[in-house]
């Protein structure tokens, strides 16, 4: 029982995924092999989707200060700061949104949006995050 509790208590910590989560990583690798450098521009719909879904945790202006932020063990990512985001590729951001934090070795509090958004929408959200941080991958 102890290992189960350790896993539960780990919610919010940025731990390496456990053995049981390996299939998700396989899924990421298969996505990596695809061409995802799709140029999909940010539209008003993208901004509205960000406000509706992402702002709950990441904040209306993407500063990581959404309504839920105070209650999360790991603060939501500040999308206006380039320090971290320029170390991530667009593909990594895409995977984090699509498959959730846990699947990419980050905080499990970030859920997977793969059944909510089509891939092209997720690409536009990645581009919107790039707009917010005014940064590209290094």
């Amino acid at each position, binding site marked *: *029982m102890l290992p189960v509790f350790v896993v*539960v208590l*780990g919610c919010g910590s940025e731990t390496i995924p456990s053995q049981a989560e390996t299939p998700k990583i396989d899924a990421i690798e298969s996505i990596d092999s695809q061409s995802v450098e799709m140029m999909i521009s940010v539209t008003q719909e993208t901004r509205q989707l960000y406000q509706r*879904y992402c*702002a709950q945790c990441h904040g209306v202006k993407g500063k990581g200060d959404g309504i839920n932020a105070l209650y999360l063990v790991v603060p939501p990512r500040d999308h206006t700061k380039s320090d971290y985001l320029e170390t991530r590729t667009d593909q990594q951001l895409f995977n984090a949104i699509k498959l959730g934090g846990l699947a990419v070795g980050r905080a499990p*509090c970030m859920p997977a949006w793969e059944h909510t958004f089509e891939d092209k929408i997720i690409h536009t959200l990645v581009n919107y995050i790039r707009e917010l941080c005014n940064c590209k991958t290094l």
Partner: protein
Amino acid sequence: MRIVVIVLLFLCCGSALPALAEPVEIRENGCKECHRFSSHDKEFYKGPDLFFAGNKFYKNWLTKFLQSPMVIREVNVFSGSNVLREESKAIDSHVALKEDESERVTNFLMTLRLPNLELGKVDEEPLSKGERARAKVLFERTFGCISCHRALNLVGKVRGGVSGPSLINSGERLKPDWVFNWLKKPQQFMHEGRMPVYDLNEETTVLITKYILNIRKNP
């Protein structure tokens, strides 16, 4: 023979009777300014939709809630821009009704139902210790529900986000069939919610439904 005919006529007419008339309290208290009573109404995102209240809420809980409202979701959501604003974490007080008013409104709300929901999928068998541990992992880690919903940690302390409704003591409020259907296909209740859509199989949906409805905090 005559009695049989009369009984048959009564049964036929009875089934064709219109739903319970809307009580005046709904209009007098401006309920429709915050809640949708039909799926065709414009989406408000301020108070929860009530056009499936009969599917969703337990009658006893709703009657008591209308007399002594409590906070279920700590944020107000503005309809204009559909944006959750920082300043929205202010709670509008819900109107309180008298006992007889509350009963009339509840009786009406219980008639508001959606057809074609999957019923009877969640049995009354309590979760075993192992199932509960598995469900907790799914709830907190796999699906990240804790990010937006209030729940309890291992020692019974309140934790979790506030943009979604609190799930503490939700078993007193929500019917298992409704939670099952919401988790399985939220689009049948709301065109676009704020919750991620999950592609859950039936077993997982039942497991999480039971887990959610058993998040209990003793008074």
